[in-house]
């Protein structure tokens, strides 16, 4: 019995050890896989945990692009800070803000992704009367545009009733883990409409797998091999753009094409999207006596 227990433990150990990642050559590493997003954080002690009245302080925001894509039109805002207690600059229309045009994503030349630091200068005000402290809740918000590229090999079988067709194996539903961004092509359903002029339809489910919120998705292009697909978003007023609600961070794009071939074959499916992403973090600043 004891030997059996020991064996069981060894099996668990082996299984756990087996989970470790085998080193992969950088040149072969695909940065456009899994779920990744832009990280935003304050650097240590900027701002300090507690601030004295009428003193200067720094708030340094670090942006770290962990996505496999570049981010553009980046904006960082402090929202909800009471200027009477925390006068933070540079201000923009009432709230402190800084922006950046481009922050490169992870690639062979920059495997860790690009980083950028935003410096904000602050000055604390007086406490109200003889208050012991003032605790301010506020939001650190980040907004940017980025894109995703999706590529996969698919089997096209225009004649699904042809049992003697010894071509590729048709897969009607495929799932994906991500493409190196918060927005991901999560699932593709492939439907063949057979007949004299057979058609193929791809139902592509896009999903936000990040911590933030996708505000809108623009469809850029879809190609099957070298030929373009006709696509439109389901439940969208404009076919090529969709605005996502906070409570439903997913969309379905339907792409179709009339097939010329009569036999099964494999080809690549290429999809490109641009999206606007927003992330906010609740932060605190405290003035003490």
């Amino acid at each position, binding site marked *: 019995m004891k030997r059996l227990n020991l064996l069981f433990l060894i099996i668990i150990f082996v299984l756990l050890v087996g989970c470790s990642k085998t080193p992969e050559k950088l040149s072969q590493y695909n940065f456009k896989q899994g779920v990744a997003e832009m990280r935003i954080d304050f650097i240590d002690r900027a701002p300090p945990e507690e601030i004295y009245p009428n003193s200067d302080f720094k708030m340094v925001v670090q942006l770290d692009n962990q996505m496999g894509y570049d981010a553009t039109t980046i904006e960082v805002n402090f929202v*909800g800070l009471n200027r009477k207690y925390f006068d933070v600059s540079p201000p923009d229309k009432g709230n402190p803000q800084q922006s950046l045009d481009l922050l490169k994503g992870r690639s062979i030349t920059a495997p860790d992704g690009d980083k950028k630091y935003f410096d904000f200068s602050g000055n604390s005000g007086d*406490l109200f*009367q*003889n208050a012991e402290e003032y605790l301010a*809740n506020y939001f650190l918000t980040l907004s940017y545009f980025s894109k995703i590229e999706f590529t996969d090999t698919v089997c096209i079988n225009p004649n699904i009733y042809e049992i003697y067709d010894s071509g590729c194996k048709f897969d009607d539903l495929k799932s994906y883990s991500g493409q190196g961004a918060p927005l991901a092509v999560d699932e593709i359903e492939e439907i063949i409409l057979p007949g004299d002029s057979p058609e193929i339809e791809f139902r592509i489910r896009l999903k936000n797998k990040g911590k933030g919120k996708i505000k809108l998705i623009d469809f850029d292009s879809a190609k099957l091999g070298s030929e373009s697909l006709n696509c439109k978003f389901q439940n969208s007023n404009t076919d090529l753009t969709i605005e996502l609600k906070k409570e439903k961070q997913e969309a379905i794009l339907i792409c179709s094409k009339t097939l010329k071939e009569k036999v099964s074959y494999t080809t690549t499916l290429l999809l490109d999207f641009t999206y606007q992403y927003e992330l906010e973090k609740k932060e605190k600043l405290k003035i003490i006596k």
Partner: protein
Amino acid sequence: MGKLSGLMGALKGSGAAKGIGSVAGGALGKAAGGVGSAVSAGGSAISGAGFAAGATAIKETTGALRTVSFLMIILGVIHYTLRVMGISGVTTILSLLLFILAGYALSSKLDTDRWAVFIPMIIFFVWWYVFGSSGESTFLMYYGTFSALFYIVPLIFTKGQAIKPELYGLLPVFFLFMDVGLVSFIAKEFGLTSTPVLKNLVLFMPWWAFFGLMTLPTKKEGPGAFLINTAKIVGILYIIFTILIPSMPSVAYAQDGVLPTMTEFEKTQADARAELGKNSANPAVLNWKCFIEGRYTDLPQCVEEKKEIAEIEYICEHEERYKPGTTSYKKCVVKQQEERNKGITQISGSIDPTIKMPTTAKLVVSDYFPKKTFQVGGKTTAKFPIELEIKNPRKQEGIEVIITCNFVNNRIRDGNYLGKVSGGNSDDPAVLSINGELEISRSFICEPELPNDEYLNGSYEINYNATFINLVTKSRLQRAFIGDEKDEVWKKEWIPKIMKAHFSGSNAKSQAPADFARMNFAFGNPIEKPIIEGSTGMLLSSNIENVGSGTILEVSKYNIDLSGDEPADLLGVKPECVGSTTPVKGSSKYNKIIYLPTCVIKTVPDNLKNPPNYIFKEYEAEITYDYQINKKVNMEIVVVEG
């Protein structure tokens, strides 16, 4: 003693009477004897009146043993009524009697050994009443050891079974404290603001009656079950409406002696009753009235409306002294309503939790105060000191405190004499100037100013008054501006976030230190909503609230600063809405709020009209006012012929 035994015998037979008789002791037994006869009489009345059916039903179902709970309810109500009427001597004796009955009722309810319940009661009672709640360590060591034996021995003999009744025995102790005025005492000692729950606990809780209700026997069926269960439900509803609906204040307590005496407790309770105002309507009654009227959906509003009507009626009847039903009385009611309607929305404020040290002051009677003075001859030479303790944590300057006193003997015609005060400034001994000192503790002497041929003889009440001139208290209010172009999606996402981040708890209300008075103010549309949507049509409402135990004599000026930290003012507000340098009449003892006009804010500064996300701002208001606190002290002068 015999009468008490008789009462107990009627309750549970002679055995019970012996048990209680031995606890009560001689003096107490005598005192309780008188009450016993009253109770017997009351009992007879009950059996002959409307309660007869109920009492008989209980008798049928629960037996004579358990009717002690029912008796407690009746006695508790009588006791409560006497307390409300301000009769103190009998209530003290009734308290003690009910304390003993409580032990008896509890043991019957628990169906356990009576002695185990009585052990902690006796230990506590002896310590508190007999030894004056001595905190002296040697005594406590002896007393504690001795008491522990009482606790432990039953545990040994019952193999631990006695622990439950022994612990339950602490319940009557708690109720005794609550009944004699623990809440009022704590509130007074710590200067707690009279919150609704505090007010209700002091004014509307017949503690012993509730104890009786709690210990009523459980009966699921039978003729008495309906009566018992109805009584219980009514009791629970009463507690819910009186205590649970208002929020609880946090209290803490520490003092030199371990516990105050019963007299001290009862004195503070009597003072608190007088101070909280007889105009307060019973919340349970109001809630029921609203229920009956079918106002289930706006119950809190209905209660508030009825409370306001009750307050107005009280002011017109008791303060303005108009006879109800007369034209003058009706005019007074209309005038009061108009006064209050100046503020369409009756806004409220709260204590700023970040300000731990408010400006406070109290008149303290020293241990050396001559409560009884023997005077030889016909000239009063006695002097009566009072200590004024002021905490001025914000180092306010230019405050003057005027001390006055007078001697009152209500039994003598024209028995009211002014007093002469000394101990203040060198140029005016009745005045104390405060110029930024953090803490001041100063003794003042009061001596009667009598015509040459008169002197004090007998019992008098000295009224000390301290009037503070030029006190300043600031309030602040926070608001978030989202502008008028945000779509529903944005609002649905961000409004809950803003509320959670900035307006949790009482942060949506204006906040001020727990000084004597404060300005409550709010604006928005609706006023109480802290998130300002759009840029027009907001209402601004304000009032000045007396949150201390004294009286606002006058508000010399007030100001609401709507500019915040921005250069542009919120526009289109009438000047009288945001400030006045014309003195405003103070609050009365019964009417704690001075209503100020409600106005429209026509627009907001440009930068707040459509911010990219939202802008969070804070506004301040300030009042300068005169405030009076007072203290009444009883003393006696015995004139001895020389």
